[in-house]
């Protein structure tokens, strides 16, 4: 008899606990803050500056979502995650979304039960070598010592690349970008490999950047994007379309400079009107108000502005748009229509 009482009590505890689960959007609104998972520090994508403010391209996405949902781009709690902890943090509900240059792969999407809500940066894994090594191609790297940043898809791509080209190498796994850089500069490895954007960012901080070259080979596809938990489609839609709004804004010429003017009254372009909420009821469909996209864009500018401000050619990182140009300019950045 005693046993059944205990089991009963346990069941009640379990039920009470499960009743507490609600939609992520309601949670975020009730909390008044968006918990956004970011990296522990990768300049240009997400890193706290000298004043402790998080800055970067991924951070911009978090802020846009917070602005769309909560009306305040500052209402974000940035949760630093490592490669190891990011998925658990998301799965367990510690964070509402993950914007940590995470590669969209089949197994993460399907097996780990996450939902990628778009791609904010098309990346690929590259190699950097000192110029005086005299290496012109990654295929010349037979027997080289390669520094890898662990916790990413990098080590898998590397193994695949060297295996398919049938050349040997010596991997040196390193936890943080800063330490990998130190090892590379000290000469403990001949090659440093990570995403090409990361390589550019790293090279920019060297004492003498011109002494290092990034090899032409890009050995993998790394579509990076924000992701949310499987199963909460409403919340997934909000994150997806907040990102799309930034992309659409650039395509339609809506910038943080002219957005006030464009949203004051309906313009001649119906898609701009729908995006900014002066026409139609897209915001309502998402469960937000009409000005959601306007706020998202005002948070840090449109996609192009975010790019230029954080990782563009005028920043120390100095990345060209390349694949990340709008589809009209020969890039891959493309949003489904707002209608």
């Amino acid at each position: 008899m005693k046993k059944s009482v205990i089991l009963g009590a346990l069941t009640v505890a379990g039920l009470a606990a499960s009743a507490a689960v609600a939609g992520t959007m309601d949670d975020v609104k009730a909390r008044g803050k968006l918990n956004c998972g970011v990296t522990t520090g990768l300049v240009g994508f997400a890193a706290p500056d000298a004043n402790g403010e998080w800055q970067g391209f991924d951070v911009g996405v978090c802020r846009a979502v917070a602005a769309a949902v909560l009306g305040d781009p500052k209402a974000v709690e940035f949760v630093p995650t490592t490669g190891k902890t990011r998925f658990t943090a998301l799965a367990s509900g510690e964070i509402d979304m993950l914007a940590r240059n995470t590669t969209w792969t089949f197994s993460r999407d399907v097996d780990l039960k996450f939902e990628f809500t778009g791609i904010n940066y098309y990346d690929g894994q590259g190699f950097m070598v000192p110029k005086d090594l005299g290496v012109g191609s990654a295929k010349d790297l037979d027997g080289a010592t390669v520094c890898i940043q662990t916790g990413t898809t990098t080590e898998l791509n590397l193994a695949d690349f060297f295996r398919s080209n049938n050349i040997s190498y010596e991997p040196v796994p390193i936890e943080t970008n800063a330490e990998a850089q130190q090892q590379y500069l000290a000469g403990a490895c001949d090659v440093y490999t990570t995403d090409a954007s990361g390589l550019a960012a790293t090279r920019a901080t060297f004492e003498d950047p011109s002494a290092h070259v990034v090899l032409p080979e890009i050995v993998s596809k790394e579509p990076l994007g924000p992701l949310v938990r499987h199963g909460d489609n409403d919340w997934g839609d909000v994150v997806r379309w907040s990102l799309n709004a930034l992309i659409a804004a650039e395509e339609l010429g809506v910038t943080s400079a002219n957005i006030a003017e464009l949203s004051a009254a309906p313009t001649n372009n119906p898609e701009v009107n729908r995006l900014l909420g002066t026409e139609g009821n897209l915001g309502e469909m998402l469960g937000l108000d009409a000005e959601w996209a306007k706020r998202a864009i005002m948070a840090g500018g449109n996609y192009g502005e975010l790019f230029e401000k954080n990782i563009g050619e005028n920043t120390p990182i100095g990345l060209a748009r390349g694949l990340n140009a709008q589809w009209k300019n020969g890039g891959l950045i493309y949003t489904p229509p707002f209608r």
Partner: protein
Amino acid sequence: MSDQSIAFVRHETLPPSPPPASETGIVKWMRENLFSSVTNSILTLAALYTVYSILSGSMPWILGGIWQAPSLQACREILAGDSAGCFAVLTERWHQLIFGFKYPQEAYWRPTLAFVLLIVAVAPVLFANLPRRMLILTGLYPFIGFWLIWGGTIMAPLMGLVGFIVAYIVFQRLERSSFAMGVLGGLVAAIIVWTLGGYVSDAMSGFLALEQIPSRDMGGFMLNIILGTVCVSLSLPIGILLALGRQSNMPIIKIICVVFIEFIRGVPLITLLFVANVVLAYFLPPGTTFDLILRVIIMITMFSSAYIAEVIRGGLAALPRGQYEAGDSLGLDYAQSMRLIILPQALKISIPGIVNVAVGLFKDTTLVSVISMFDLVGMIRGPILASTEWNGVYWELFGFASLLFFIICYGISQYSQWLERQLATDHR
């Protein structure tokens, strides 16, 4: 004749001549302490060479260091090719190193004051000759410290304190009938007071309130100190209970304690931190928001309580059997004899061991940097080394971190050695 027979006799004593140069002063000291044999001389020379090469390598680097520069590039320009430290990173980022990057600057006085008070509060525990009245501050400190560091209304820690006081009064009332009843009654009373107090402090949330600072904003060396202090103080009572449980003659309780202690001591702290960071969330009710620092505190407390339990068990075992028997023969029950006879003595002889565990634990708090928390080491390895300005500054930062830890840990271990000498009763 007399001239011949009288030998020369000295009338006054000669002043003692100084000992040979080789038997006095610095020379003698050197002969005895440095060059007493061939092996010794070789050792001395080797040691001198080591000291010389370390100093000649590091001193110019330290003395020629740059203390004012906005970034590493600027530092390198000032140095113009010379090799010297760029300590500007310390002056530029000291607040991040000490307080983390999110703790509000205008509130830095709060943890500083809390730290000073901590020293005052701990002093009477460590030094028995200080006035006993200072122990009142020690008792109040957890609440003051909490209020200062986390902020919010003072009602919350006040209610916590009231809960403890009520619990103690109830315990004293009920203790006469049975110790267990006393503990139970005290627990129930405390829970009632805390629940009621929760409403009170919610209602009076503006009363004497400091700006509330969430715990994930803590960082830097402050985080190491908070983790170290909180976990050691929480693990003391748990450690005592575990040690008593392990010594008890109730088989089930003994087994539970042994398994817990051996399990915790058998795995590295880092795996427990992984559990806190990666796994623990799965074991909590869905939707619980339980921030990382709290989960880490739970895990580190479990870790250190197992070690402290072993130290205290050593103390319990070191007590002569007669003390236990004396308690029994006076007709004291288990709780009384433990509380009045055994534990005071056992704890006293375990203090040096406990202090050693505390030092080890304080050093181990740096491991939280591996699970993406920004303590001192995490701050260095994360935001500072990743920033464009200070990318590549290495020795200066880690030297600074080692120095901070060294000062505190060396101080504590000196105290522990002093205490050991105080406690040593055998005069060998």
